[in-house]
């Protein structure tokens, strides 16, 4: 497998550590947990022990203080080892929110817990069509020193086992746009919070699991007059609009890296199969109908690496939310499209066995379909890029 290494020593160490974890926790392990419908706790503990949950936590709080390049390398390795998940990305996004925009008190309150293995979920989706980051109607009404929150957030990952839920709410007037948004931390145990399981899954036989191979499961979070203190707001009341943009950018940078890792992983499986599976007396990978799509997918993955690498650098150069969104969204677009291409030829060259969950390729398919949609879909990313970066007129 062609792999062009331009990683720092730190990043190589991260990659090696992740690869090691991947050996212990292989596809069979995750499949077993999924079939039992349980969260892969043992794996999560190992991640915690390795300090990876503190990736974006400041060192004074026990964190590892990864640079954006480190973070990209980490997520890329996680994807390549088959370990990346929405719940990990969500937890890191939430940690980043607290670390970057929280008060010292908030940081002290929450970060050590995350570093120690607490799961968080970032309940940002409502209509969940990937067309508007600020599609927020869940409302927060001031009531003395408290806020009273009502509404439904959808498809929040692992909300059932999350310690806290980070929720963008509309605290100001209006129902659209980025003004009047606040970012609130709601304990999952808070009164008025109901967690309803949703069936977002690949498996459609009658017997089916709610938990994905990656440990993800999805829930609607129904909030009925949930009361939280004002100091549960991160970044100031009505100041959350830009934060939502920043967090989406961070989230998409991680998704891009993980999707690239998936691309590498799936292509490695496809190449192995292509070399070993003999069909009509030749290895199946020697047929151009198989080989050329593999090459195109691999090229897409390599290009996504270059673009995502560039995006990671941008996070260390600027804090302009719009600019970061441009870099990260384009990286996510390229990476997920590349992963889709890898998955497509991976499944196709495996034939019927591509749909066998023990083979494992098909488990990535609904994930990459999902990631093309959230938090911004490919169409919207392209449109936005054209308007914001290339000066095309808005609609």
């Amino acid at each position, binding site marked *: 497998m062609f792999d062009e290494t331009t990683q720092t020593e730190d990043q190589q160490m991260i990659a090696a550590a992740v690869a090691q974890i991947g050996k212990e926790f292989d596809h069979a392990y995750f499949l077993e947990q999924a079939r039992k419908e349980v969260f892969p706790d043992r794996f999560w503990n190992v991640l915690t022990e390795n300090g990876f949950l503190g990736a974006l936590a400041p060192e004074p709080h026990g964190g590892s203080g990864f640079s954006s390049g480190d973070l990209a390398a980490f997520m890329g390795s996680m994807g390549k080892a088959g370990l990346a998940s929405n719940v990990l990305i969500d937890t890191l996004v939430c940690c980043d929110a607290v670390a970057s925009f929280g008060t010292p008190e908030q940081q002290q309150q929450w970060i050590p817990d995350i570093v120690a293995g607490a799961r968080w979920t970032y309940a940002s989706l409502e209509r969940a069509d990937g067309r508007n980051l600020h599609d927020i109607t869940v409302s927060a009404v001031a009531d003395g020193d408290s806020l009273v929150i009502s509404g439904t957030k959808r498809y929040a990952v692992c909300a059932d086992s999350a310690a806290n839920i980070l929720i963008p709410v509309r605290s100001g007037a209006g129902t659209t746009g980025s003004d009047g948004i606040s970012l609130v931390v709601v304990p999952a145990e808070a009164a008025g919070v109901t967690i309803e399981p949703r069936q977002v899954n690949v498996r*459609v036989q009658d017997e089916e699991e709610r938990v994905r191979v990656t440990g993800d499961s999805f829930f609607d979070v129904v909030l009925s007059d949930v009361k939280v203190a004002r100091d549960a707001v991160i970044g100031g009341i009505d100041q959350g609009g830009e934060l939502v943009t920043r967090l989406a950018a961070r989230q998409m940078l991680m998704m891009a890296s993980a999707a690239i890792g998936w691309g590498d992983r799936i292509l490695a499986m496809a190449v192995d199969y292509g070399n070993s599976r003999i069909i009509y007396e030749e290895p199946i990978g020697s047929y151009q109908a198989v080989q050329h799509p593999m090459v195109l997918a691999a090229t897409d993955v390599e290009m996504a690496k270059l673009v995502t690498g560039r995006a990671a650098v941008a996070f260390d150069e600027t804090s302009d939310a719009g600019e970061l969104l441009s870099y990260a969204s384009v990286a996510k677009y390229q990476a997920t499209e590349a992963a889709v291409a890898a998955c497509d030829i991976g499944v196709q060259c495996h034939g019927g066995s591509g749909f066998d969950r023990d083979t494992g390729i098909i488990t990535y398919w609904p994930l990459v379909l999902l990631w093309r949609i959230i938090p911004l879909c490919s169409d919207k990313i392209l449109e936005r890029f054209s308007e914001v970066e290339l000066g095309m007129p808005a609609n």
Partner: protein
Amino acid sequence: MIEFETRTQREKEMVEAVAGLIAGIDLRKMDGDLQSSLMQSAMKSGAAQYMDMIMSPGGLLPFKTEALRQLIMYGGNEPVPGRSMAKTTAKAQPVKYALTAMGMAAISSGEGGRDAAMSRYLPEIMKGRLFCYCITEPGAGTNTNKVSTIAVDNGDHFVMNGQKTYISAADTSHYMVVVARIVKDGEEQGVGTFIMETATAGISMTELDIAVLGDKQFTIYYDDVKIPKDALVGSKSGTKSGGKISASVFYTLNLERIIVGFTTLRLCQEALSRAMERAAIPASDGRVPGSDPDIKRRIAKVKLKLEQASLATKRACVAYDNSENPVVMGTFANMAKYLSTMAANEACQLALELYGVEGLDKDKDDVGGDYLMARLLRVAPINNEMVLNFLGEHMLGLPKSYR
């Protein structure tokens, strides 16, 4: 609305009549036994006059693929919101049904001919007995030219040994149609098609863990299965040719592609209707997706691909029903399979984009379930690359691209 398919008045009446009949039954609510139910309904209704088109021995449904196509594509069922096509087609069991049709095709192209097959198996089919079709072997993949399951002819009966895999709906089948090599006195006798009861001693099966809804998939084991001599129904062929498949198998595989074609197109139709419904609902960016010229064009493209695939499938049905030139039949059957599966995948992708995450939610419309089914149909029952190879070789007359 302009119509791409030109259907005769009689065809329209037939579909309407049958649709009317099955409205009482509802394809979605049936769990097998379609034909006998239809028969009963036909008795009760005044529309029985049309039933002969599909139900009479000369026009038996499985052999009138064009009638079956019209029924599947235009028959009765309005799309039911909130229900996956994969789920509903699973209920309607088109795959099992198709397999039965294929079984009949295999049988009727045998040495005994159609009449013998009729007299023996038609009553069974009328009772709702289902068939499964066993050709794929482990390690052979799409290479159906190589058959290693062996039926040893020892005078009184055959003894079969071997293994078949990715066999759909074997668990609910009453009969198995099995393709195997025939050996007598250690000599290769060619490849034949056998029919036997699924309950025959020596046949066992294990379920595969396939991530797609619909019929379950199995690996079947044949351990010294004793079968009578008249179980050999398909014509033998390829004696000493190293186990090449016979023309009758080829014929049957074409039928399979045709049936996959129109079944997939029904799925495609429903995905497209749901995409169009959803395109009318304002999205979170405040826009109605259907007013986006790109969405409009993509909807048009999917519709046109659907119509093309449908025309190709119809043409294939006509060629099959009239036993036209095998190259013409094979060409359109393969086009039907390729075009319908590609159109269905596009339709599902479009619907998914319009639904957003909800499209992957099984308790909502579950576009994801249909998409997965459509995706599977790009590799099963034959992968689309082999379909293109067939067309390259037989439609265009290009050299084979594989050994």
